[in-house]
């Protein structure tokens, strides 16, 4: 059996990192940063948290490349969705 078993220590570390990320998100949300920085910071923290969950809790770090490709294709699809939609909405004044 070649299934990789992730240790409990790693799970605990990731969990604590996620808790820290949550505290950081709430703190940052209450601060007034210039311009669009609030959104950028909030999304950056969220992406990092999600990445940790995907890589370690969902074992993608230790999984076959095919699973990486499947996940990447979903994110690529979302990229197309957002890029094409907003290339329309954000280049005109009316909704």
């Amino acid at each position, binding site marked *: 059996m070649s299934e990789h078993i992730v240790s409990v220590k790693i799970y605990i570390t990731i969990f604590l990192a996620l808790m820290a990320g949550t505290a950081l998100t709430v703190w940052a949300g209450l601060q007034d940063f210039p311009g669009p920085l609030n959104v950028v910071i909030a999304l950056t923290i969220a992406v990092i948290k999600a990445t940790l*969950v*995907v890589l370690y809790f969902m074992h993608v770090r230790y999984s076959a490349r*095919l699973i990486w490709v499947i996940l990447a294709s979903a994110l690529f699809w979302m990229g197309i969705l957002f890029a094409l939609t907003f290339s329309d909405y954000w280049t005109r004044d009316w909704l």
Partner: protein
Amino acid sequence: MAETVEHLGVGHEASHPALQHHFENMEQQREAGNIGMWVFLVTEIMFFGGMFLAYTLYRSKFPMAFASASNHLSLPMGAVNTVVLILSSFTMALAVYSAQIGKRRNQVVCLILTIVLGLTFLGIKAVEYHEKYVDHLIPGQLIPGHPFKPDKVHLLGDAAKENVEMFYWIYFAMTGMHAVHMIIGVGLLSVILFFAARGRYDPEYHSPVEISGLYWHFVDIVWIFLFPLLYLLGRHFEH
């Protein structure tokens, strides 16, 4: 050794009772199960992706209305729910780990904890939804005779009352669909718990636990994005 069943392409050793005929060995079966669940999660990403798109669009068009509406949500309840859900992902990962090392009792305990935390999340959500109902913030005419009235929402900057309702449509659509996924997840885990308690899973075969875990972690990830986008977007205007 007792007589073994011979399968073409597989060695002479007796195969695991859970091995299906169309797979060479348990490892391949396990991987195929995981790939199948991942493909399903891709469809879920597309599903929620559309709603995140709607959120992004309307937020960009009505930023102050969205900030005002967001500030009316309960930040403590949202934050507690986030902690509860991440904790449940942790216990779920431990449940899978317990299955991988063949510890039946630990599996059962971790699955029960995950389910209880999931139900806690749903309970807090129910309280939040009730508050919205009391404040007449349920959009449109979803509650007959109780139309949407944004009077309770403190308007910031140039926020228009009409656009506040759009936030609540998106809030209920997204957290509602998320809650539906949680309910399905709790049901799923209850079934897995039933079989785990009967010792159905061992280090060789525990796919149902593993793929239920993938589903549960995905629902957690959706919330990791929902929380800052719905609850935190306007807080920095509050002082």
